[in-house]
């Protein structure tokens, strides 16, 4: 549905986006991650036709894309990071949405506006000036605006930034619901814990280059250097970590209160051997859990120092 080939953007001598290849199939929730200045916004702006690529190709819906293709633009919904402040302050939420419904020449627009406002819990404030809305309400209003014309792709730029936990959950549920209805969703965010909850596939951009692109689980497995096993014990003898380190498969072992933390190579499952060893030491393991790498840790792993190591994982080969 969204494809880019060698997408590049240069500003003078500075390369903001360097030969990025994306391939996002229909119906996916795709997370686009990157620190500030990584080239995330430039990539999105090129995908939306706001910024012209210096080089490369963009295909949307299997057709070459250019900003002139208004027919393709009609199939995209966009939620920018922030709602423009100080503009259209005299408008009510209903009038604001009506303006965009008119731009899209929607039929039965009132019905559609009412339905969407109801879905996000803003039906009661339809006739309220949106200048009085909170950040969360504005974000929901923005999503309603982006969904008005029933787009095939929804672009969300930092959709939960600055929202309270309740607002975060509402937006997350809305994203998942929209995806269940078959909409392709492209999310750019730095709140990695949330991305982990909603995205099926993620890409990490750094220094303008696509460092990694994979399914969430595969990426976390690939990026993990080792496995970390947490064993809860009734009691943790002080010499236990040293004893555990003597086991051939153990790379490191430490004690944290009543929990033994053991690092083993990611190539094998050593839980059975570890349990046997602990029982031999007359200790009772209450629980044995493998702690997987979080997206946040994976993100941090991809740093300037190991660009070469991770460059081959996903998009950039």
């Amino acid at each position, binding site marked *: 549905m969204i494809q880019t080939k060698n997408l590049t953007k240069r500003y003078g001598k500075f390369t903001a986006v360097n030969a990025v290849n994306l391939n996002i199939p229909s119906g996916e929730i795709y997370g686009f991650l990157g620190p500030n200045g990584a080239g995330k916004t430039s990539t999105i*702006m090129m995908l939306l*036709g706001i910024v012209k690529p210096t080089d490369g190709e963009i295909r949307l819906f299997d057709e070459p894309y250019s900003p002139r293709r208004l027919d393709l633009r009609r199939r995209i919904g*966009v939620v*920018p990071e922030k709602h423009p402040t100080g503009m259209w302050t005299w408008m009510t939420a209903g009038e604001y949405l009506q303006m965009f419904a008119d731009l899209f020449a929607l039929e039965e627009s009132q019905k559609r506006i009412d339905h969407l406002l109801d879905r996000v819990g803003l039906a009661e404030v339809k006739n309220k000036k949106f200048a009085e809305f909170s950040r969360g309400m504005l974000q929901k209003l923005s999503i309603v605006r982006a969904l008005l014309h029933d787009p095939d792709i929804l672009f969300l730029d930092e959709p939960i930034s600055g929202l309270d936990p309740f607002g975060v959950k509402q937006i997350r549920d809305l994203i998942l619901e929209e995806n269940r209805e078959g909409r392709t969703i492209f999310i750019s965010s730095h709140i990695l814990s949330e991305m982990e909850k909603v995205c099926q596939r993620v890409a990490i951009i750094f220094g303008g280059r696509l460092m990694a692109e994979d399914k969430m689980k595969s990426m976390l497995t690939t990026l993990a250097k080792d496995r970390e096993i947490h064993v809860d014990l009734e009691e943790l003898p002080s010499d236990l970590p040293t004893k555990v380190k003597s086991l051939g498969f153990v790379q490191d072992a430490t004690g944290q209160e009543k929990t033994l933390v053991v690092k083993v190579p990611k190539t094998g499952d050593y839980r059975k051997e570890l349990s046997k060893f602990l029982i031999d030491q007359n200790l009772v393991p209450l629980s044995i859990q493998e702690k997987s790498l979080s997206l946040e840790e994976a993100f941090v792993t991809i740093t300037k120092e190991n660009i070469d190591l991770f460059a081959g994982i996903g998009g950039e080969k």
Partner: protein
Amino acid sequence: MNQRAHATTVLARRRIFETLISPGYYVAQTIGLVLAYFLVAGFVRSIDSSGFDYQLYPAYELIGRSLVGAFGATFVDKLFSEGPFLFTLYVAFLPVLLYLAVSSVFRFGLEKKVGALELLTYGPADGTSYFLSGLIKDILATAIYLVVLLVFLLVAGVLNNLVLGPSFYYSLIILFFLSITIYAYGIFASCLTDNSASAIAVFLGLILFFIIILMGSFTIVSGYVRNLASVFAWIIKWISPLFYWDFALGFVEVGNWGMFFVGIVLLLVLSAVVLFISHLTIKARGVRS
């Protein structure tokens, strides 16, 4: 209707509504009409047995001296030859023209800065449909005000036993078309810059530049400076809306109505050229600042 025309119509409707509910437009109109009232009243007080003498009324004396200094005595004589209304028309039109032009330039820069213009392009509108909607709003607001001003001055004429001469009506027509070109230059300044402040500076700079060129053509400067200035002005004048305004009114004086309409057409052509350059500029620079 294609998408751009549709987006332009929808946005223009909104912007006209916004202008009609905002106090700024009415404040500018009021200022213009109050100025018109004082100028007509002052003119009546400046008439003695030998006719109009601007030296009889302090305000007119100041205005008259300034205009003679800037444009020469012949220009001032022509300006008042048909009574007070021609001068009043220009003075009363200026606040509304400035308000509409500067507020549009300001808004364009602001909407670009805060991302509102970008949001509209997801709408889907584009930079060109956005600025065309603003131009339609300005043209309509100008037309409304010119009608109001015309009615106001007709009533003032009847009450003071004065008539609006032919030059007044021709000036009224040419002012309408002149304002379109000025708004087009406002759009061009907005497309060229990233924020409201620089857009307003570029726009006012351009207008000032055109005024200086026009004043140069009226002012008698001797020797080398005059020759150099006239060569420079000849090169630049083709892009100045004030040149076509002067061109059209010049033919009115000699009764050549055909060339007057040629002047109007040239103003429209210049507007179209400036808008086309603006279209190319916003296409190249984008709607993000």
